[in-house]
């Protein structure tokens, strides 16, 4: 897949934005699917055709599982949390997420035949911080975890569930934000 750092705009069709929004709201409401990790976290994958600018979101895959508290991921995330996470009212053990490899494999298998690629992931922030009340930007930890990924980090602000916002940052870097056009 070509580097994505040259992308200047992302087009997010309304239908895909609805999928993301509904996923976030459903998790906030505690309405879980069978086999889904419980808790107010929502993350998923965005796919499209590589090498296009603007980059069109062709499909969105909400993910059900968060393996953050399973080994070997737990030890890794605990260490990363201790080193990079800002203090928050949410305990470190309940913060963070990692995609399940089997679920990711299913997505790759589904899109490979259409020559599409995973070019980003989304997750939501729900707790307002004193100096960041909207929480629509990546945290330091988001940035550290995304470095070298060649993926966009889409941050969904769900501080106000009735007014979700989404922004995109290449490799989770605030200075590498790309405009999203929802249409």
């Amino acid at each position, binding site marked *: 897949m070509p580097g994505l750092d040259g992308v200047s705009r992302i087009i997010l069709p309304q239908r895909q934005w609805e999928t993301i929004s509904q996923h976030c709201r459903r998790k906030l409401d505690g309405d879980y699917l069978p086999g889904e990790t419980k808790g107010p976290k929502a993350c998923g994958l965005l796919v499209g055709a590589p090498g296009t600018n603007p980059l069109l979101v062709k499909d969105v895959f909400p993910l059900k599982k968060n393996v953050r508290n399973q080994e070997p991921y737990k030890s890794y995330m605990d260490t*990363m949390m201790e080193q990079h996470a800002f203090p928050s009212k949410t305990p470190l053990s309940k913060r963070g997420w990692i995609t399940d490899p089997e679920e990711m494999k299913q997505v790759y298998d589904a899109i490979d035949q259409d020559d599409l690629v995973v070019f980003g992931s989304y997750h939501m922030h729900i707790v307002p911080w004193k100096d960041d009340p909207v929480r629509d930007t990546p945290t330091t930890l988001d940035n550290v975890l995304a470095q070298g990924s060649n993926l966009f980090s889409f941050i969904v602000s769900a501080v106000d569930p009735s007014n979700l916002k989404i922004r995109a940052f290449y490799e989770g870097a605030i200075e590498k934000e790309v405009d999203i056009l929802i249409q």
Partner: protein
Amino acid sequence: MPKIIIPSSIRRYTDDLREITVEGPSFKDSIDELLRRYPQLESVMKNGSLLSFFVNNKLVKTGLEDWDSIQLNRDDEISLIVPIAGG
């Protein structure tokens, strides 16, 4: 010969190739050959404790240890999955 399927996010390190055929015959030999041919993949392997490996669509290993225990046949397909994480 075994094939290794590379996920799209790291194909920039493999000349944009999705599928790479290696000599094998063991799992470890296959991954070693992959890294020899595409040394930039080492940057992905540095957090290797989180990498997952599938053989013929079955998850066989997460991490970079105990590879000798993974059996590989001549026409097996290895898929590499790099997890995505956030805070």
